[in-house]
């Protein structure tokens, strides 16, 4: 017997290939999104190594912030181009050799240095699953890919402290609830000494930069590898790190 439709309100008859807006898309009902948001928030706090939970939290709570971001991009010439061309920062698309050869202080050189120092790769980002709009799915994917560049621009490492600072910056910039939650709850796991540095120097700087800077998603980073980091900071309006 064909299964009954048990998902409150959804019209699907076949599972896979149903309403799938992009590869990896899993359509969800509002109830499922709410449960996912709550569950992923708890799990992310309980086990900070569950990066997939942070990603899920971002997707399920971003319904207001993501359209906002998309519109900001649409109304900016460079952002508009990004939405059209849909560039992806991936090891396969980056010319690592060329970037390493760039002069010190350039975006490309510093980005590669950041990847090496922190032993991370741009390919470990989660693809979006629960965003129910194909363009918004790209926006959140772009945000994830640009996150490492944020570390580079802000000069923050990938330890807990550095991540929290970047989250504060991103919270101001994007308004994504996930960033706000991360910024607010991330410090819970820091020592008091680090908390002090965070509160007195880093967070105020991150907030000021976040407010002052233009939208970081409106930068076509792939075309700016040669640009010196400092010049890019000035152009965006990010104050020099303390």
């Amino acid at each position, binding site marked *: 017997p064909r299964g009954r439709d*048990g998902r*409150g309100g959804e019209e699907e008859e076949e*599972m896979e290939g149903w309403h799938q807006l992009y590869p990896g898309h899993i359509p969800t009902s509002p109830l*499922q999104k709410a449960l*996912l948001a709550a569950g992923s928030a708890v799990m992310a706090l309980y086990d900070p190594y569950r990066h997939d939970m942070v990603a899920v939290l971002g997707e399920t709570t971003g319904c207001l912030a993501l359209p906002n971001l998309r519109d900001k991009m649409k109304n900016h010439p460079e952002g508009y181009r990004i939405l059209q061309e849909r560039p992806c920062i991936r090891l396969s698309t980056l010319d690592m050799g060329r970037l390493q050869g760039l002069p010190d202080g350039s975006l490309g050189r510093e980005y590669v240095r950041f990847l090496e120092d922190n032993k991370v790769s741009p390919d470990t980002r989660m693809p979006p699953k629960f965003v129910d709009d194909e363009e918004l799915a790209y926006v959140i994917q772009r945000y994830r890919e640009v996150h490492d560049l944020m570390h580079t621009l802000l000069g923050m490492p990938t330890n807990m402290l550095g991540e929290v600072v970047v989250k504060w910056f991103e919270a101001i910039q994007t308004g994504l609830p996930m960033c706000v939650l991360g910024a607010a709850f991330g410090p819970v796991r820091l020592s008091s000494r680090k908390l002090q540095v965070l509160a007195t120097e880093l967070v105020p700087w991150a907030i000021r930069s976040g407010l002052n800077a233009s939208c970081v998603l409106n930068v076509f980073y792939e075309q700016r590898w040669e640009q010196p980091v400092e010049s890019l900071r000035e152009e965006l309006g990010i104050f020099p790190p303390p």
Partner: protein
Amino acid sequence: RGLAAGPEMHFGFQTVTEEERREKIYQVFENVAKKYDVMNDSMTLGIHRVWKDILMHKMNPCPGTLLLDVAGGTGDIAFRFLNYVRSVRQRQLQRKLKHHQNLSWQEIFDSYQKDQFNSLGDSQVVVCDINREMLKVGKQKAQHLGYSEGLSWVLGNAEELPFDDDKFDVYTIAFGIRNVTRIDLALQEAYRVLKPGGRFLCLEFSHVSNPLLSRLYDLYSFQVIPVLGEVIAGDWRSYQYLVESIRQFPPQEELKAMIEDAGFFKVDYENLNFGIVAIHSGFKL
């Protein structure tokens, strides 16, 4: 339509070929193996333990029983079986001791010694599963919990068991038959490997007939369980498959008929929790 390489069947709510179905199910269990037990506890709020306990009580094995647990993966049924026969055996020994109170100390000590090394009373359980990952988790659990005696692990397919005819006293399949691609073959194999007088026991999700409960059950299954799968195991799709496969599985009466078709007698079923789960039983005569 006609390029499918074989008969069409379902994988959850999808339509696939037999071969595709086997592969997809293998992958599902490969993915969930490590989190299988945690997920079972979360999804059923621990109630699956009670269901398995009830199965064991229904079986009521006596020491010396040879059990085949098919699709037994992480060992839940096998461990319960060993605990059960061990405690029955202990009670047996205690009763024996009571009756021997007129013997000399030396005689009592000798008989105690002899029985000490047979705490299971020669009972044995063979855990058979088609999935290497599930067996791996099961073996690790056994080591961790201290089960070694009377326990064997065999890689095998329920549709084509690597055992001889008329070998086992009891055959169990708990939450496994739903994932078998050809249920009729699995039932035939079960019949073949059981001794005459042997018992077939199947514990599986079934159909809820009460309409209100059915609605609530559906709501919980489709709205909550995949979310639990994503949050706990990072795997939405496997748990979506799980709830769909439950809906696709034959209801109580239909399964009873299939078991009878395989040659079993005195086939009966018992609903647990209004039919969310059912235990089917049959005998080879």
